[in-house]
């Protein structure tokens, strides 16, 4: 078997005395959806920031498609084929929806030079924003901004997509729609690493989950396995509830 697409080894980052990510190791194979779970403050977003180049790790390695990316600036990570979305949506607010996607197309992996209206339209159609291309990003609803962020990430033509709580804050029908979108990406062969709290989505989407607590990995396996793992239950609910909890 060839090496997995993403190999994280011993990744660490401390903020002062707080070890936000502590010797984290895991893999994500080509075409897999891997969930990164854990209670609030367990270091999931920091881990994504380290992989995507927003933060520089103190130690450890991030191997992606054969290249070492630990410590590389974000734009180089993007060009290597990793795109991300943000926990709090970050679209280019006073630009049009179309320009937001153009940003991805013009600076992404293929770095094409403008004039690719078909691609923009195809990407916007893919996330269901086809009819809104000319609107300002700030005028979109929350879910549509999330869709736009996804379209922009896809415009970078990534091989690995990092989703930071992309499904958080959606209402039930939007959630169904969101899960369907991610599944469609999966079926098209995209590798996804998602930080998520929505358990239904994790169960139905993830092939494998990595659970973090206090910066370190405490469990790994299928969603069903990790969610019944005693250490995971303890991390989420605390010691006293261990017997009562039946996840």
């Amino acid at each position: 078997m060839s090496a997995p697409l993403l190999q994280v080894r011993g990744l660490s980052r401390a903020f002062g005395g707080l070890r936000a990510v502590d010797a984290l190791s895991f893999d994500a194979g080509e075409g897999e959806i891997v969930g990164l779970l854990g209670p609030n403050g367990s270091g999931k977003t920091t881990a994504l920031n380290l992989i995507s180049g927003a933060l520089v790790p103190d130690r450890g390695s991030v191997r992606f498609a054969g290249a070492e990316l630990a410590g590389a600036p974000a734009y180089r990570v993007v060009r290597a084929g990793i795109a991300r979305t943000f926990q709090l949506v970050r679209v280019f607010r006073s630009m049009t929806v179309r320009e937001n996607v153009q940003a991805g197309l013009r600076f992404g992996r293929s770095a094409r030079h403008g004039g690719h209206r078909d691609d923009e339209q195809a990407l916007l159609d893919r996330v269901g924003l086809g009819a809104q291309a000319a609107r300002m990003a700030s005028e979109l609803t929350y879910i549509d901004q999330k869709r736009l962020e996804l379209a922009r990430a896809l415009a970078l033509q990534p091989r690995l997509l990092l989703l930071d709580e992309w499904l958080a804050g959606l209402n039930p029908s939007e959630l169904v729609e969101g899960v369907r979108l991610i599944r469609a990406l999966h079926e098209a062969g995209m590798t996804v690493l998602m930080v998520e709290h929505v358990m239904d989505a994790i169960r139905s989407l993830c092939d494998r989950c990595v659970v973090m607590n206090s910066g370190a990995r405490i469990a790994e396996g299928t969603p069903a396995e990790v969610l019944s793992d005693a250490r995971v239950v303890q991390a989420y609910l605390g010691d006293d509830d261990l017997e009562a909890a039946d996840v």
Partner: protein
Amino acid sequence: MSPTRVFAALAALGTFVLLALAPGLGNDYTTSLLINLMLYGVLATAWGLFCGTTRYISLATVAFFGVGSYTVAVLGERLPWPLVLLAAAAIGALLALLVGLVTLRLSGTYFVIFTFGMTELLRQVVNWYESKVAGSVGRYVFVDAASPGFIHGQLLVLLALVLALGWWFGRSRLGFALRLIGEDEQAARHCGVDTTRAKLLAFTLSSVFMVLAGAIVAPRWTYIDPAIAFNAIVSFQVVIMALLGGTARFWGPVLGVVPLVLLFELLVKYFPNHFPIVLGVVFLLIVYALPRGVVGWVLERGRKRGASR
């Protein structure tokens, strides 16, 4: 090309032809006024190129302007004029790269304060050098390039160049990158933009124009000292002009330059003692009434009209 664009292009061309002929048509006063207009036109447009698009508000305009003036004061009599300009541009580019590398990691208020502090530092250093090493604080500028007509012509070319650069920014990848940085720098980085490189490049280009402007007008003064060449008020005026015009388009700052240069001209003449107060009031009025400048106001109206149709 749409009719509006053809009209705009023709109007711009007509203005430039008229400006080129102006020294022959008017008198000394009009030429001197036009020099002032074009000087601030260059400074504000150059400021808008970098600061307007990236929203990194710089108060270092006069630092580069002053470096240009001092280059002329020091080298003006030793080198032929084109070489003096070249030297000024090179020194300015070097300084901009240095300052850029140090400061462009800062954001928001920190960047504003740093640029302001750096200007003061530069002024003090020049002051110290002139008084301790060179022996006298001021310098006389005697060069052949001092005729108003010649200065006027050079500034006109410089203005055309900086506007052309702005036009190119509007359609280039670099310009797009700067806009993304202005919108959300972190998101821009995660869109594959090498933000440090883009900022450094644009900051340097913009600074070179400021340095050249300072070099070209230096011969007008015949005498300069650090307080004249590094007068912080100039930096503030440039910001106010660019904000009044609006920085959403490359031609925006010029729209702010014309009314404010004329206003300041009147103020200096009739209320010389109250100049800073009025400057402050004008600043407040602009920020409250036209936060995105004339350009922003026009674009907003256009969008609303488009949406209601």
